[in-house]
């Protein structure tokens, strides 16, 4: 009964200071985003929106420079609203809670104030004394002490600084030599170069198994002999093996090599002593 009206009075007083703080903080965010947009020529992004280009060319009130500035200001405003909304959704808003604020500002009040507030309707001999004590202590508080003066001042200074920077950029036409179109152009160039390089590398790749288009088979007693080597036996027909072979092929490509025989098939008339030799050859090949 005693404490609540006093808290209400303080709340009214502090609500205004917190609104001022909130205004400067939001204004600071807006000006900062606007500055970023000017510096990085982000108005170009707006021209990706259908109709903006036509609007820019058809409107006669503003020249292109000021029209672009208006576009960036609108963008900054939308972003500021979005950020505020996200802060509100995730509870990171600078919410004003008088009890918490008083408890933080005056730690000796902690627990006592919340107890008095929670039990303000439950009057008995103990709570009455507690309410009287808390009331007298609250009344002695200089509420101006807990006005967030520093925060308001800081937000105001930040707002002023960014506003100055924005004014400078607008009147001097200053911005960085970076823009979304340039970035996108660079990105596309880089992508194109990367693709071209990848295609070139691909064409350079050696695929020995398909390169010679020669298929060797062994036919014995009129039936084709299975030439596949179990992968667990060794490397099998690897690119390494075939690359070695390729070397020999390359050596012989320029002139006739009498030692080298192209042989696609082995006839069944192959002398018997050749069979272990061939077997040994493949075993060695597989064991390499």
């Amino acid at each position, binding site marked *: 009964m005693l404490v609540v009206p006093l808290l209400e009075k303080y709340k009214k007083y502090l609500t205004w200071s917190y609104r001022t703080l909130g205004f400067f903080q939001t204004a600071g965010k807006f000006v900062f985003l606007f500055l970023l947009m000017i510096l990085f020529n982000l108005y170009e992004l707006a021209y990706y929106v259908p109709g903006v280009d036509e609007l820019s060319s058809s409107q006669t009130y503003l020249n292109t420079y000021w029209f672009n500035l208006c576009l960036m200001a609108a963008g900054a405003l939308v972003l500021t609203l979005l950020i505020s909304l996200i802060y509100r959704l995730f509870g990171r808003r600078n919410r004003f809670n008088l009890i918490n604020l008083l408890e933080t500002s005056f730690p000796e009040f902690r*627990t*006592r104030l*919340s*107890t*008095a*507030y*929670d*039990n303000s309707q*439950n009057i*008995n*001999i*103990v*709570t*009455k*004394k*507690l309410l009287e*004590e808390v009331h007298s202590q609250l009344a002695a508080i200089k509420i101006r002490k807990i006005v967030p003066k520093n925060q308001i001042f800081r937000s105001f200074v930040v707002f002023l600084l960014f506003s100055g920077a924005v004014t400078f950029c607008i009147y001097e036409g200053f911005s960085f030599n970076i823009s979304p179109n340039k970035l996108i152009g660079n990105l596309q160039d880089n992508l194109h170069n990367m693709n071209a390089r990848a295609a070139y590398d691909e064409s350079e790749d050696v695929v020995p198994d398909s390169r010679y288009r020669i298929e060797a088979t062994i036919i014995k007693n009129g039936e084709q002999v299975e030439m596949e080597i179990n992968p667990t036996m060794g490397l099998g027909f690897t690119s390494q093996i075939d690359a070695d072979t390729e070397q020999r092929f390359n050596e012989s490509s320029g002139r006739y090599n009498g030692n080298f025989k192209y042989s696609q098939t082995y006839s069944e008339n192959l002398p018997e002593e050749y069979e272990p030799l061939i077997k040994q050859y493949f075993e060695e090949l597989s064991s390499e």
Partner: protein
Amino acid sequence: MQQIQEIQLENSELNLRPTYEKSPQIFEVIFREIGNSIVGQKEMIRQIIIAMLCEGHVLVESNPGLGKTLTISTISQIMSMRFSRIQCTPDLMPADITGTDIIEEDERGSKHFKFKQGPVFANIVLADEINRASPKTQSALLEAMQEKQVTVANTTYALDKPFFILATQNPIEMEGTYALPEAQLDRFLMKIRLDYPDPDEEFEIVNRYAEAFRPAVRRCIEKQTFIELQQITRRIPISNQLKKYAIDIVNQTRKMPDMIEAGASPRASIALILCAKANAFLDGRGYVDKRDIDSMALPVLRHRVILSFDAARNNITSDKIIQKILDNRKTTI
């Protein structure tokens, strides 16, 4: 009608004002007088007074010879209360505690039944080695604790106020004992563990009690004053945040199935908040602080949790678990 009720409430509150205003001095005198007789054991004395302020009962687990009887009899003398002691044994019968109807003959020779009150009809009762009494006798005593009345031969007798039972049990000798069931343990507001005094305290004890003159105990407060202190204790306010904090601690005991088989009941939440109020009152504070809840959590909860087999096997005590819960909750407020 509502107006009359409000006026009555105000009057009843006004009656408590003198006691409330004098309470810091009253507590100071109580502790000073007990300190004249008892050396050390300050924590036990404080917890007993807290339990008495909350109209609860205490189970003390200690070895013999640590001054339980002396403490409790001293308290009863200081507060001018009736004190009785029951030495529990396996052959103790319920009637030995509650009392019984006896046949009495008057001057004219006519005989009639007269109720002979048992030792439970006192303000402070010491039930020594309660776990030695049979379950039937234990339940008779526990019924008196809970209901603060005794029923003998279909007649109910109200017990005098304030009514406080201090039951003891020996943690070592378990042979021939009947362990108190968990449901009955829950009725004790607190379980106090007593340890041996340190050498300095023991030196002082020897000095005091090996001499010819034993310290005299003065009567300090009236029974009615203590009843008023009990009423004021329940009026100590607590914030909603701290109520939730106390409930959360009790709730945590139900969320540890790997260590606790059965957690504390809602009666534990009530007990914890009440004891915190009494602790704040003893400190001369008109509101409950977090420290009050933290300091009362161990004696209030240690006998209300049933440890799992794994916890018992790994020598994890209920005290360790409750302390862990408190440590985890330290950052919440």
